[in-house]
């Protein structure tokens, strides 16, 4: 097997290579190896997570499109749908924080407008290491300014998110970016290459050598040597993306679009194969027609390049000029580079010579699926026995309270979100800083609330409950804003799945999320898995980030977390138990990450959410705030910092 060495260099295993030879009944050439390696990477194939992801509930009366397409679609009534998804750009952001984070924004936005929706909001969930380390400040500075640059330039508000600091992220920051768009129910577009003979059209920027092996890189653990893979980082151009967005939305109105998908990880390869796979058709690509930015690019480079701001569109035969005029108006590249065929194969041709010829289903249906071994982590024996009696009560509770309030994980993040234009599009009715961001839907009386949550310490101490809490807390945050929780997307950030302890954390998290999602009637409609978040054998805490969307039917009833006027009564809903496991207090004051996360009773949680929503709609509630990191004391303090100046509160225990 002469090409085995090349396959191994691409990260394919021996068995995976043997399977390819079987499927093709011949050895693959280098271009084909590149294609299989990208498509069978963890990032694109979900091979280590697929069987577990099946356990997540994805259906519901409002769900129009669940996982499997570019983004999830949820019906919010009056023929309007919201389209949303979250993606991780952890590995590129470690190598080049500014461009890594910026292209993360660009990529997730394309996943939204490829479905025919106009993006109207962005959120970012960021996790960094110890803030005292210079590398953390460098990464934080780069990531925040990258998100700010890309989001501000394209004119889509970044309305919320979360930022956490924990030593486990020292060598491995997490950059999860969420985007939400809005469209009419009958104007949703899918990524399918239907209609034999229909032309395949390439639109957007020219192709360069950036980010080659981006997909494969995301599936590699971080060792010193990965840092030498520098040219693998893509560079973004938000100005061109803004033109691409407007041009695509204009194209959709012509009614000639059959299918469309953005070129994300593995660029032209994944977009063509996935579109053919969903439609059960084949695609022939004339690669010499692809507009290029560099000279002398090989078919291998063109097929795997991850240059940004590019889309692949299938349009009705004979309508090429209609599409070309639109993209020329917006100054974008446009080229017919192939057609849909009934061969069920991806055939790549360069000047008439076939350079790759692969059955589409061999990549999509017959990709390897692993049921990796799982084992309960040994650290749990140590962390589980937390004896509360042994924790000394600090003598000066005031100074403890103040140090909690100013700790990096709790203190106000204005210095971050003030770098984002969170007002553009004049829909932001509740700006960053409250439990959830709220965006109004012009022309209706409705509003959308969005929140993202995950306490990775809880997930480290008990992955099942920690992941369930991420879902429950998101629903609580939405209820506190007066919104009915509808559905969520997620970014499942974990270490190396080939290690049984990590696989155990992953399985437990999936089960915890599933139970909460079913009980609270909030299905999963899209998401992403990011494995191999590990540097020199040290993995991050399990971080299943949840971004949940809620609906406010009457915008007049939206609520925020700040106390409104003197004399109002303060009510505590739910019961308080003697629990300190995984708390911010325990870590900050006693340097301990121990115990079990707070116990979670999902039936009570559901009743709490319903009660709160009923009280809010009946008009007796002036503000509501979810108690999370820092407990009751911090929640009360946060409620006192109102946008028009501080207000006091008196509590008798």
């Amino acid at each position, binding site marked *: 097997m002469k090409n085995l060495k090349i396959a191994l260099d691409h990260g394919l295993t021996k068995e995976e290579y043997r399977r390819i030879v079987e499927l093709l009944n011949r050895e693959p050439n280098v271009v084909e190896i590149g294609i299989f390696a990208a498509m069978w990477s963890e990032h694109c194939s979900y091979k280590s997570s697929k069987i577990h992801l099946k356990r997540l509930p994805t259906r519901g009366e409002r769900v129009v499109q669940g996982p499997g397409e570019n983004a999830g679609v949820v019906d919010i009534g009056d023929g309007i749908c919201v389209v949303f998804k979250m993606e991780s750009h952890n590995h590129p952001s470690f190598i080049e924080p500014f461009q890594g984070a910026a292209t993360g924004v660009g990529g997730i936005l394309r996943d939204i407008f490829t479905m025919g929706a106009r993006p109207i909001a962005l959120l970012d969930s960021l996790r960094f290491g110890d803030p005292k380390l210079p590398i953390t400040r460098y990464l934080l500075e780069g990531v925040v*300014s990258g998100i*700010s*640059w890309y989001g*501000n*330039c*394209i*004119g889509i508000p970044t309305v919320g998110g979360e930022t956490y600091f924990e030593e486990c992220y020292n060598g491995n920051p997490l950059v999860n970016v969420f985007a939400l768009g809005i469209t009419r129910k009958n104007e949703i577009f899918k990524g399918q290459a239907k209609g034999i003979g229909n032309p395949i059209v390439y639109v957007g920027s020219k192709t360069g050598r950036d980010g080659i092996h981006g997909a494969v890189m995301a599936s590699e653990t971080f060792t010193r040597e990965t840092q030498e893979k520098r040219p693998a980082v893509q560079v973004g*151009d*938000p*100005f*061109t993306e*803004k*033109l691409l967005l407007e041009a695509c939305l204009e194209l959709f109105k012509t009614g000639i679009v059959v299918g469309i998908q953005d070129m994300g990880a593995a660029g032209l390869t994944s977009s063509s194969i996935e579109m053919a796979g969903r439609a059960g058709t084949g695609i022939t690509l004339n690669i010499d027609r692809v507009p290029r930015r560099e000279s002398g690019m090989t078919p291998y480079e063109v097929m795997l390049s991850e240059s940004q701001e590019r889309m692949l569109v299938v349009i009705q035969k004979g309508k090429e000029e209609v599409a070309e005029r639109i993209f020329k108006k*917006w*100054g974008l590249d446009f080229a017919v580079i192939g057609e849909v065929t009934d061969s069920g194969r991806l055939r790549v041709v360069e000047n008439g010579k076939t350079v790759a010829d692969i059955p589409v289903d061999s990549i999509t249906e017959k990709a390897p699926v692993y049921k990796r071994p799982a084992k309960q982590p040994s650290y749990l024996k140590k962390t589980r026995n937390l004896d509360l009696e042994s924790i000394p009560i600090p003598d000066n509770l005031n100074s403890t309270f103040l140090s909690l309030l100013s700790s990096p994980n709790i203190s106000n993040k204005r210095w971050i*979100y*003030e*770098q*984002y*234009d*969170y*007002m*553009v*599009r*004049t829909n*932001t*009715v509740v*700006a960053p800083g409250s439990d959830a961001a709220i965006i*109004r839907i*012009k022309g209706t009386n409705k509003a959308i609330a969005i929140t993202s949550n995950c306490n990775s310490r809880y997930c480290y101490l008990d992955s099942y409950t920690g992941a369930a809490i991420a879902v429950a807390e998101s629903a609580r945050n939405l209820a506190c804003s007066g919104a009915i929780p509808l559905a969520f997307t997620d970014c499942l950030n974990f270490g190396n799945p080939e290690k049984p302890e990590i696989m155990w954390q992953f399985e437990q998290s999936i089960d915890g999320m599933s139970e909460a999602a079913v009980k609270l009637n909030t299905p999963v409609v899209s998401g992403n898995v990011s494995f191999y978040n590990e540097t020199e054998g040290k993995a991050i805490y399990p971080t299943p980030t949840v971004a949940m969307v809620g609906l406010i039917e009457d*915008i007049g009833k939206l609520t925020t977390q700040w106390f409104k006027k003197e004399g109002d009564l303060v009510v505590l809903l739910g019961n308080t138990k003697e629990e300190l496991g995984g708390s911010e207090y325990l870590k900050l004051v006693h340097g301990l990450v121990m115990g079990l996360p707070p116990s979670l009773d999902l039936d009570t949680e559901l009743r709490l959410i319903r009660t709160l929503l009923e009280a809010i709609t009946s008009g007796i509630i002036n503000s509501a705030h979810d108690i999370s990191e820092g407990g009751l004391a911090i929640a009360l303090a946060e409620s006192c910092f109102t946008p028009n100046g501080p207000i006091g509160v008196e509590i008798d225990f």
Partner: protein
Amino acid sequence: MPRFGIVVFPGSNCDHDCYHAIKHILNQQCEFVWHEEKSLDGFDCVVIPGGFSYGDYLRPGAIARFSPIMQAIKGFASDGKPVIGICNGFQILVEAKLLPGAFLRNASLKFICRWVNIRVENTKTPFTCLLREGTVLRIPIAHGEGNYFISLEELNQLRKNSQIVFRYCNTRGEITSQSNPNGSIENIAGVCNPEGNVLGMMPHPERCCEDILGGHHGKLIFQSVIYWISQRGSKQGQSQLKIEPLTV
């Protein structure tokens, strides 16, 4: 009824926001004007919205100023008709030499999105004719290069012709360095041409025409120009419609 033209460059972002404020909140006739158009006939007021025309590449507004529409805007302005450049629009007017000065990066080197207070310094422009001098308006800013710069001689010119229209201030209307968000010389937030009909301002009035968004002071600027157009720009004294100084 006054007819507003909102110019759209490749990369403009706040065009829809201006359209919503003028059409749906102020109920005026309003249309988008693509940057390659050559004429502004039939329009009573031209709005150059905020955004990142041409990605702000090279310098904000440096490339947009060569669009065909700029010739029409120059003619429109020399006819004495009202033109307002908001944020990126102000940067384009400065690059096109319709307004004096230039923009540097914010002193903090960071993009800033925040509510600020600005003081009305000149009520002789179509956009401030319904306001009283010294009125404090609360209007949001969102920019990375809003640090207004001008040479000292030209600064004296601005003072002499009272071309300084807005200055960043605190809630009591005092011009302080703490209230200056980006390092602009003399806290300048908005200037007009000597004739007063072309205004450039960094804060975004279209973002605060409805209380649900956090404030309505932006509406007064659009109401002023609507009133000014309805009086066919006749140079009366202070208008009949008295606006009490706004206490914030």
